[in-house]
C-alpha cells in the first residue's frame, strides 16, 4: 500500500470507528449486567449485526495499519517484520469473517 493512501485510510478508519466502537463497547458493558436472552435479543437487530461486523472489519484494518507502523519502528530484522505483517493481515481478515459467519448463522 502506498504511504499516502495508508495515511488517509488510517485517519478515515479512525473517524468511522470512534462512534461505532464506543457504541458497541457501551452496549456490551451494559449487557454484562443482564441475561443471556437479553444479549441474544440485542444481536437479533439486523442493523446492530451490520454495525458489529463493520466494527470488526474497520477496526482490524485500522489496527493492521498501526501495527505496521509499530513493527517498522521496533523490529530490526526485515524477515521478522515481513512475517509479523503477514500474520497481522491474515488475522485482520479471518477474525472479522468469523464474526460475520457467527452473526449470520449462530446468533
Amino acid at each position, binding site marked *: 500500500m502506498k504511504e499516502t493512501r495508508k495515511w488517509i485510510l488510517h*485517519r478515515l478508519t479512525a473517524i468511522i470507528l470512534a462512534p461505532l466502537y464506543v457504541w458497541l463497547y457501551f452496549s456490551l*458493558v451494559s449487557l454484562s449486567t443482564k441475561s443471556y436472552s437479553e444479549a441474544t435479543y440485542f444481536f437479533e437487530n439486523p442493523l446492530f449485526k451490520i454495525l458489529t461486523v463493520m466494527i470488526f472489519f474497520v*477496526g482490524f484494518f485500522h489496527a493492521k495499519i498501526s*501495527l505496521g507502523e*509499530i513493527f517498522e519502528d521496533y523490529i*530490526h530484522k*526485515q524477515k521478522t517484520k515481513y512475517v509479523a505483517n503477514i500474520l497481522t493481515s491474515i488475522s485482520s481478515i479471518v477474525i472479522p469473517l468469523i464474526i460475520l459467519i457467527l452473526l449470520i448463522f449462530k446468533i
Partner: protein
Amino acid sequence: MNDSNNPLSPHLQIYRWHISSLLSITHRIAGVINLLALILIFFWLVVLSLGESNYELFLSIINSFFGKSILIGFTWSMSFHLLSGIRHLVWDLGYGFEIKTANISGTIVIITSLVVTVIFWLFARGFI
C-alpha cells in the same frame, strides 16, 4: 533483504520525559490495548454463540473483580485513544503545534479521559 542499514526508532528509555512524549507513547500503548479489547469482544460473541450456560460462566468471570478491572482499563484506553486521536487529527489539520498549546491540549486529554471513564462506567453499568 539487508538488515545492516535498516534504521530503527530510538528506544523509549533514551528520551527525557515530557507531556508530549508521554502522550505519544501512551497513545500507541492504548491503541494496542484497544486491539486486545476488540479481541475480548470477539471471544464475547463466540461464547454468546455457544449457548446459555457457557455465556453465563463467561459473564461470571467478566463480573468478578478481575473482570471488572479489565473492563474499566479497556474503558480508559478507549477514552484516551479516542481523545488523543482527536488531538492528532487537529494537528493533521495544521493547528495546535505551539509547545504551550500542545501541553495544554495534552493535559486536557489526560484529565478528560479519566472523567469520561468514570461517567461511561456509571452509565453503562446502570448506576445513573
